[in-house]
């Protein structure tokens, strides 16, 4: 039995130390502030602490007005996308040890959605775009008594895009989305992909109409910002390309 342990790497057992880390946070309180401004906060953190832990500490111990959304705390609910050192990330999935703590760590709200307060943005335009692409199964024919059959290969075809947690990190990293009111944004494309490539779905024509209508897809300039931003590791740009190709050839 013990042999099993010897063969495998036993985790390191260093005793971690807390260090002071400074955060430079973009603040905006709608009840009192005219404009957004930067404020610095310093808290003691362990290397394995998340940026979310830091924000919780700042809110709990230094300044209760600091406002941000969060729920699950481990990258699964999509609440806390924000710009950390200029990159869109989830605060709960960004560890202090992966950031340069010699300089203040900047934290700002995601771009392209109206800022309501500190890190809190208006998510409605984002969800509205999602709803427009008909993000639900549109089946054909009679409902079977048992499950619909689907081969493991057909299931794998759209696996990547089922992982989306609607955090908006991709959409709000897209330069086209920032400037163009017509573009659905990458996350909505990911949702479209999820259904277009599901062998059980027959809604292709309906979705095609929506996607062509506002030139929704065609604005994508393949900058790959979205793929880099996605905390779920979804190949967002690839998914958008596949959707475009399906629209051009009118088949999946």
């Amino acid at each position, binding site marked *: *039995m*013990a*042999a*099993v*342990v*010897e*063969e*495998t*790497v*036993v*985790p390191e*057992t260093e*005793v971690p130390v807390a260090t002071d880390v400074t955060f430079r946070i973009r603040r905006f*309180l709608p*009840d*009192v502030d005219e404009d957004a401004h930067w404020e610095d906060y310093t808290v003691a953190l362990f290397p*394995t602490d998340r940026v979310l832990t830091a924000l919780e500490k700042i*809110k*709990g*111990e230094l300044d*209760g*007005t600091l*406002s*941000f*959304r*969060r*729920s*699950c*705390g*481990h*990258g*699964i*609910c*999509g*609440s806390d996308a924000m710009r950390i050192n200029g990159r869109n990330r989830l605060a709960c*999935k960004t560890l202090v040890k992966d950031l340069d703590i010699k300089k203040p760590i900047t934290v700002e709200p995601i771009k392209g959605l109206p800022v*309501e*307060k500190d890190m809190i943005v208006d*998510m409605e335009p984002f*969800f509205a775009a999602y709803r427009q692409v008909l*993000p*639900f*199964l549109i*089946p054909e024919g009679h*409902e079977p008594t048992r*499950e*619909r*059959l*689907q*081969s*493991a290969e057909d*299931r794998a075809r*759209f*696996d990547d895009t*089922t*992982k*989306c*947690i*609607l955090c908006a990190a991709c959409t709000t990293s897209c330069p086209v989305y920032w400037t163009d009111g017509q573009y659905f944004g990458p996350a909505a494309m990911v949702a479209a992909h999820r259904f277009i490539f*599901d062998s059980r779905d027959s809604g292709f024509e309906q979705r095609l109409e929506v996607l062509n209508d506002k030139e929704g897809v065609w604005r994508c300039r393949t900058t790959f910002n979205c793929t880099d931003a996605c905390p779920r590791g979804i190949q967002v740009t690839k998914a958008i390309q596949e959707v475009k190709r399906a629209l051009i050839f009118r088949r999946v």
Partner: protein
Amino acid sequence: MQTHTFDVIIVGAGGAGMRAALESSTRARTAVLTKLYPTRSHTGAAQGGMCAALANVEEDNWEWHTFDTVKGGDYLVDQDAAEIMCREAIDAVLDLEKMGLPFNRTPEGRIDQRRFGGHTRNHGEAAVRRSCYAADRTGHMILQTLYQNCIKEGVEFFNEFYVLDLLLNEESGEPVAAGVVAYELATGEIHLFQAKSIVFATGGYGKVWKTTSNAHTLTGDGMGIVWRKGLPLEDMEFYQFHPTGLAGLGVLLTEGARGEGGILRNASGERFMERYAPTIKDLAPRDMVARAMVQEVREGRGAGPNKDYVYLDLTHLPAEQVETKLPDITEFARTYLGVDPITELVPVFPTAHYAMGGVPTNVETEVLRDNEHVVPGLYAAGEVACVSVHGANRLGTNSLLDINVFGRRAGIAAAEYANSVEHVDLPGDPQGATIALVERLRSGTGSERVAAIRKDMQDTMDMNAQVYRTEATLKQALGDVQELKRRFANVSIQDKGTRYNTDLIEAIELGFLLDLAEVTVVSALERKESRGGHAREDYPNRDDVNFMRHTMAYKSTDISGEEYVRLDYKPVVTTRYEPMERKY
């Protein structure tokens, strides 16, 4: 202040709330009030699967599933409810597939199934493949699929609306549901919602503990609101500690990891579960595995610098299997502990996970106000409710099942009731209590801070009311919580604004948590036996003579005006299974 009128109000947009909404919205005018955007609900964190005896990969039937549920729950399960759940499980899974849920598939293209703790063939012979799953993201897929179908059906959501009070009125001297009061996060405005039926689907209260798999937002609001109305809470001493939380963090690693063949080992590499559950070993029910882990650590066989955890070993499994069947938990271990499960052992320790207790309901999901009577128009489903299908210990996969089966039942029952009655008048000054609560916190000038009180509560609950309890530890926890409640009266918040005031919300949530911590500890103190998730070291055996009964806790006031937790008891419903000793 705005007033809205609906037939049915559903509070909560997790799995239970949205499953209810899909039924109710096609039958009656329905609104869903949720403090989170629906897709942020913690159902999305569920990993391992949802059990149903589909028999897609091996022989199985719902009666075996019922037996496992009853035995897993240490015979405190109401057997009529468990039968319903396990029978309706099959359609519940098939319904989700028809709605589009991308389950993993067998080579024949059917829904694939895997093993899970406590689920067995023919009354305990061997582990059975019963859990329907989508990698280790089953809850995510359920939540997304339900939300997508809510969009399809045009369900009306009020997002980031915090329900803070339940409105009851009286009809012929009996309480009936009349509406709810909600606080809109964006504006700070109070809204009144009048409705004929109200469904609570607000989830659990894991944030009472420090080490937990639960979200920051799982603060037991629904249970707290119902409690403050003088309605009972059932079996609150039964709280589940899941064996495999990432050590020190509590982030969950699904039992599906052991279902795929993962093994628990102590510091010397021994597969210690062989000693505790010789037949099904690592796939014993959670309460037994959690106790075994704590036992190993107490007896000095823990690993790490402080010898305070054990290991989950997946290194013998093919890398491909781990990457494809357990991709998310593999990533959690890599991200948060810097440990790669493919080649390294993962440090794990029990984490506060699931409330078996909650708002008592009957199988129609109607909320009980005592052992016999329901509150007309009031329903509850999901983790907030206690039907009771989980008894003293829930089996893995049975909660995703519970939220689908009883969420659906709640939606139908609430809509049908709404279609058969008129609106009840709202009571006088319906928003008064909520405005007072908000104003007291907003204008408070005390020296206490929310985060400090919350931390102290979580520390004492982890220390004194966790996997193992004794009279002494529980008394310590009770004293601490009562002291924290006094401190809470002196709390103040910094954010005095009206818009997106999360400082205020956290204070309100802490109030609910403190109430629930107290009820949990008082209920645990009085249950002088060990059963399922409630392990009393001073009473190590199950005592069917005195304690084969549900606890019913009520908020009461004594003659001097002091509030206290009054306990009463309710019989367990037994249909076909006589209590036996629990061996695996």
